[in-house]
Structure formats: C-alpha cells, structure tokens
C-alpha cells in the first residue's frame, strides 16, 4: 500500500499543500482532483521526489519513502503534467534512455520498446526526433516510458492531455487492466468525466487542503448530485461562471 500522511509543502512559509493524507491500495485507482493551483502537481512532485516535502510522511509497503527515495523510485512509473522530454532524441531513443537508466538489459528492453511504439501507433515515427512530435505523441512516449519497467505504482499527472480519442480510450482500458493486475495508481486530472469512470475513490483538493476524500458514489450521495462534476462545482467553484464569461466578452470588445 502507498500511504501519504499529513504531507505539507511550504514556500517561504506560504503553504502550497497542507496536511494532505490518503492511501492507495493494490488494485486501486485514486483520483486526485482540484482546480488550477490547488496543489495537485506539488503533491505529485513530492511523491516522486522531485521536490522535498516540508512536513509529513510517505510510506510504501510500510517503508518510509522519504528515507529511501532510490528504492521507491525503482517501483513507480511517472507521467508528468507537461510532456517535458529531450526533444532532440527520437521516440525510440527516449524509451531506450528511460529503460537503460532503470537498469533494464537490452535483450529485455528492445522488444518492449518496439511493442510499445507499435501499440501506441508510433512505430512509423520511431526514428524521428521528438521535436516534431505532437503533444499527444509525446504523451504516448511518456506513458510508454512510465510502463516500461512494469512498476508497482503509477503516478499520472494529467496523462490524457493531448491524446486522441482512440488513444484515450485504449489508455482508459489499460488503467483498468493495470488496476486489475494489482497496481496502485494515482490519477491526477482536471477531466472529471474520466476520473468518474476509472477511479474508485477521489481526493478533492482546494488551496492546498483536502476538501473531500471518499468514493465517487458516496460523494455523489452526500452532495445529492448526479455527477462528479456537480460535486466538484459545489465544493470548489466559488465564482459565477456566467458572469466571468460575460466580463471576458466585454474585455474582448473593448
């Protein structure tokens, strides 16, 4: 199990994430929701070790991750929010780099790379530098890189960003299949429909704090809502959406 306890990140004493706690069991997909700037990506970066938490603890299989980062890094796959990758490499070379850095031997790695590129429809572009890839193609490469080493935990920050409909559907099925395999998946996203369909539980974050943490069905019942979007609107959105739109039109016409 992956367990996060009172995770906090402060920048110059200003909290970006405060006392966030949740756990992910094997086979579970946990949705991590929140508006822009709510602290989703900060949490994800603390989990992956890209930034150090100010307070709190993370446990994986009972081991304190913060004391054994390298050990934990071998067990998770990560897809960042933005498709940042070395664009001068080809798709195949990037996957090769990711796999080799994880210590995978060539004999194991190369067939996997070829198969992944084929499955994601990138085989034709395997020797094309990623500088000319579309956002969706880059996202597919990142997803492939995250899955190459068969990780126990998947940390996905907006993984569907830029994916075409077919790839998104394939990937949604893949997430379910991975969960059935016993993988632990943290799924951070703005796309509420997808979260509602694939996640068993969700954490809703606002201004760095957890507003709600429960199963999707229970949240809907509690809020007497028909969809997760309604729940999210009730909990998080404090602005009059129509009024903001009208003001934008006014600015445009000025």
């Amino acid at each position, binding site marked *: 199990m992956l367990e996060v306890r009172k995770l906090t990140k402060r920048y110059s004493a200003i909290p970006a994430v405060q006392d966030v706690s949740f756990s992910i069991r094997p086979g579970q997909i946990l949705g991590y929701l929140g508006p822009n700037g709510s602290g989703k990506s900060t949490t994800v970066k603390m989990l992956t070790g*890209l930034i150090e938490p100010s307070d709190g603890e993370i446990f994986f299989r009972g081991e304190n991750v913060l004391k054994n980062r390298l050990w934990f*890094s071998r067990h998770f796959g990560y897809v960042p929010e933005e498709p940042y990758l070395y664009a001068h*490499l080809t798709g195949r*070379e990037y996957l090769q780099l990711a796999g080799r*850095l994880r210590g995978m031997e060539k004999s194991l790695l190369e067939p996997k790379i070829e198969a992944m590129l084929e499955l994601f429809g990138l085989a034709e572009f395997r020797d094309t*530098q990623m500088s000319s890839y579309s956002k969706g193609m880059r996202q597919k490469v990142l997803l492939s890189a995250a899955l190459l080493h068969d990780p126990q935990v998947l940390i996905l920050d907006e993984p569907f960003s830029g994916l075409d409909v077919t790839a998104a559907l394939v990937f949604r099925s893949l997430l379910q299949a991975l969960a059935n395999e016993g993988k632990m998946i943290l799924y951070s996203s703005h796309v509420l429909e997808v979260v509602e369909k694939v996640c068993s539980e969700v954490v809703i974050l606002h201004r760095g704090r957890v507003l709600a943490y429960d199963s999707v069905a229970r949240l809907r019942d509690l809020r007497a809502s028909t969809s997760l979007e309604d729940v999210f609107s009730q909990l998080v959105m404090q602005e009059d959406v129509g009024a903001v739109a009208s003001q934008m039109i006014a600015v445009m016409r000025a």
Partner: protein
Amino acid sequence: MPLRRGAREWLEATHGPLFELHRHYAGQLFESELITSPDDLRRVVITCLAAIASLGFIVPKLYYQKYEFLSLGPNADLYRRAIYADQLFFIVMTILGIAALVTFQWDSLFPSRQDYLILRALPLKLSHIYFAKLTTLCALVVLVIVLLNIPCAVSFASVISGAHDLAPSWLETFAEFAAAFCAGVFVLFVLALLQTVLMNVLPLRWYARASASVQSLLLVAVLCAIPWAVDLPNAVHWVDWRPAWSGYAPPLWYLALYEKLIGRASHGDSVLALRGIEAMIAAIAATILVSVLFHRRYAKRIFESEVKLRGSRLHLAERVADLIARDPRESAILLFALRSLERLKQHRMIRLVYAGVGCALLIESGIGLILSGAMSRGPIQRGAALDAGFALPLLLFFFLFTGLRYAFRIPVDLRANWLFRLTAQDATLERERALRLIYFGFAIVPAVVTTLPFLFLVLLPWKAIYGVCFAVLIALIIIERELSNTDTIPLTCSYLPGKRNILHTGIIYWLTVFGLTSILTAFEAIGAANPVRAALAIGVLALILFRTQKREPSSELPELRFDDTPEPAVATLGLARE
C-alpha cells in the same frame, strides 16, 4: 531630454507588423543563455556594441610610434607600403570578424520551424516572416561593420597623416572605411547566399548535415586564418605583389579599392577594385533573387519537415555504446551525451570553437616549427623548438577537453531532467565511466592521432613516443581530477555558464591553459634528455595517475547533483551568498 523621451515613447509604441517583426527578431538575436539571462539583454547589447566600437580607439596606441618613426625617414615608399599592409590587415580582420559572426548565427539566418509555427497564425505574409529575419540579421551585421570600421578609419587616418601621407585625411578616412565596409558586406552576403543555396538545393535529409559541415569548415578556417592575419602588418615587402591568383583573392580586391579611392591605383588595381564592387553587388543581388524565388519553397520545406534520422548512424552509436559500456545505465548516459553533443547546435558550436582554436594553434605552431629552420640539421634535439613540439598534443588535448567540459555544463532542457532525477541519482560510477570514455574518445584520441605523425616527422622516434605517452598520462590525470571534482550528469545540471563572468570562463581559463602547458612542456623537455630520464618521467606520471584513480573507499557513494550551487559572492574565497 524631451527628444530622448520622445524616442523612447516612439520605440515603445506599436508600429505595424513589419516593424514589430523586426523588433522581435532583433531581440531574438541576443537571446542566448550562454552569455546572459534575458533580464540583462539591454546591458549585453550595449556592452557588445560598445566593445566593438572601442576597438578602433586602440589604433592610435598601436600605430602612433610606428608611423612617427617611419615619417622621420626619407623612404616614402616604405611608408606607403606600411599603410597598405595595415589597410590589408583591417580588411582581412573585418572579413574574418564578419565571417565568424555570420558563422555563429549560421542557423539563425532564416526563420526556423518554430518561427513559422508561431508567426504563421498571425496576419503576416510568408515573405514578411522570411525577409524580416534576413534583413534584421543583415542590419545587425552592417551595424557591426560600421561600428568596427568608422573609429578604426578615423583613428588610422589621423595617425598616418604626416610628411609622407597618401591623401587628405578625410579622403583617407573615407577610403579606409569604404574598403573595409565593402569587404564586410561582400562576406556577409556570400555566406548568406551559400546558406540559401544549400537550403534550397539540397534534399532536406542531406541539408542539416551538409550545413553543419560547412559551418564547421568555415569556423575552423576563420580561426586558422586569425594567426596569419595578425601577421599582416608586417607584409610590407610583398604588399604590392599581385600574382595571377590575386584576381581570386577578395582581400586584395578591397585593398585595390582603397588604392583606387585615394587615387593611387595602377590599371591592374583598378580592375581588381571594380571586381570587388561587382562581386559585392552580385552577392547582394543573388541573395535577394534566390530568396525571392525560393522563400515560399523554403517555408514549405521547413514547415513540413520532420527530423528523421538515418538508421545506420543511429545503430552505429548504439553498437559502440553496447560494446564498450559495462551496464545499461552507463550506456544510457554515454548515448545521451553523444547524441546530444552531435545534434544540439549550441553544444556543437562550443565544441567547434574550442576544436577550431586548437587546430589553428596546431597548424600555426607546426608550420612555424618547420619554417623556423629548427629542423635544418635533422630532427629537433633541444631548445624552444623541442618545447613547441612537445606542447602540440597537450595543447590540442586541452582545447578539446575544455570544449567538451564547457558543453557538458550547458543543460539540454532543464524541464526534462526529471527523468535523470528519478532514475539516476545514484549512478555515480556509471556517470564516471561514461564520461571517462567520452573524454578518452573525443579529446585524447584525436589529440594523439592528429599530432603523432607530426611528432615523428620533427623528433627522434623515441622522443615522439615519449612526447605522446607524456601527453596521454597528463591528460588521463586531468580527466581523473575532473571526474572526482564534478558530481553531475553531463548536460543535465542547471548551472548556466551565462551567469558567470565571461572573463572567468574565457580569458583566465585560457591563460591558465597556456601557462600550464608551458610548465608541463618544460618538465617534459627535461625528461627528453635521454631515454632513462624519459622512462623515469613516465613512471612518475603513471604513479600519480594510479594514486589519482585510487580513491578513498567510501561505504556510500554520493548522490549526483541536479541543481546548481549558489553563485559565490566572492569567487576566489568560495563564499556562498546567504
């Protein structure tokens, strides 16, 4: 003051798409993290232009005593030839300076794919996007030519006015400026034309490689020509010489133009001067014509191009890495570094500059050694010539090594570093082994291969072998020291050299290299007295290398670093800022 405020307000206002496009491109030309952060742009632009303009004011200091001395003598012809030699020097330096500038901007002469992707969505014509880029760069280069040559022409004309002067000062100034200006403009447009033709004639899959090769050749040629050009003021004995090939030597065309303008040209010189003017106009016209004809095709090609790599090249690098790397992580770091060095323009340019300077020194020293007559009695035995011979492999290694070291410190893409941070923080040993292989393959091997035949030519065979062994051992010791002093994966650290004072990065480091080479070659020459001493010197170095490689065994290897350390407030004391 109101004028200044008015000018500022005019500059800050919007002035139509073409003006704004030129403004955008002008800003882009100076955007390089190699030299500055974006906030310092104005300071850098002003500093660069002021530095170029101030070069001219050194002229009186350099030439005053020479011409004062010559004017005291009765020999007016010697005075004239000295002026011609110096004028040829100004012309050649302008040509080399502009060639270097255009070569540095080689990939920015025309709009990039990114330019088209961003600007095509705006209400701009394709020709606007294309010509705005070209004219902005040309305007900058012309500004550099003017700033470089007006102070030089004014200063030089005032220095040479005296008993034997050739023309009134105003005419002298005009002729000097016009000759150097035309030479600079000619080179600018010839190189622009060359790149335009390469771009439009070659198939896209060949273009990138061919263009990079031409750029490399140009840069090395410019750097190799600098030591020769510096010697031009001494060319008083042959400056009037016009061999048959002078009709194909652009510097002589523009020297002839200078002579023509001051009214001292012979018939032959007048023909050469005319050729210079015609060549300049032809280069400008051809560049414009080719650009008008092909700019749409260029946009189409670059907009639709994919950077597809050839399989054979890809797999060769992989095969080599698989053959020499001991484990997957080492081969990952090795391949990443090799591919980045090969494909990234900025990194390739840095390596080229250092390798070019090394080659220029090598060629200059080698030719100097042969021409000095040191070998008139067979192989060199002792003295300064022996030191110079021994210095060659070391110097070349230093420049190749420094170029690699500098390139490795410039991150490819900081935002993409998360991959290394997550997977390679403990890859200390793998990083060391990969870097050792790169330094060996790209600094030691080329230095030895290039200089070994020459050393065998000028030294006794055992001394040549000793010289190479000595240089290789010194190189290995330096590499080991470098490996133990760094804890970053090449091309991933967030340290940007642009943050550092250029004096520190450049001049002081290079002076240290020259100082160190002199000391080492003096030590090497002592060992070269006889084979026993040579063996002893090699033995001592091998021992030092062994001790350098044998590090303290530590229970836990340090993690690699991916963030830059704070800039020291006082560099020499290494005091970190609060």
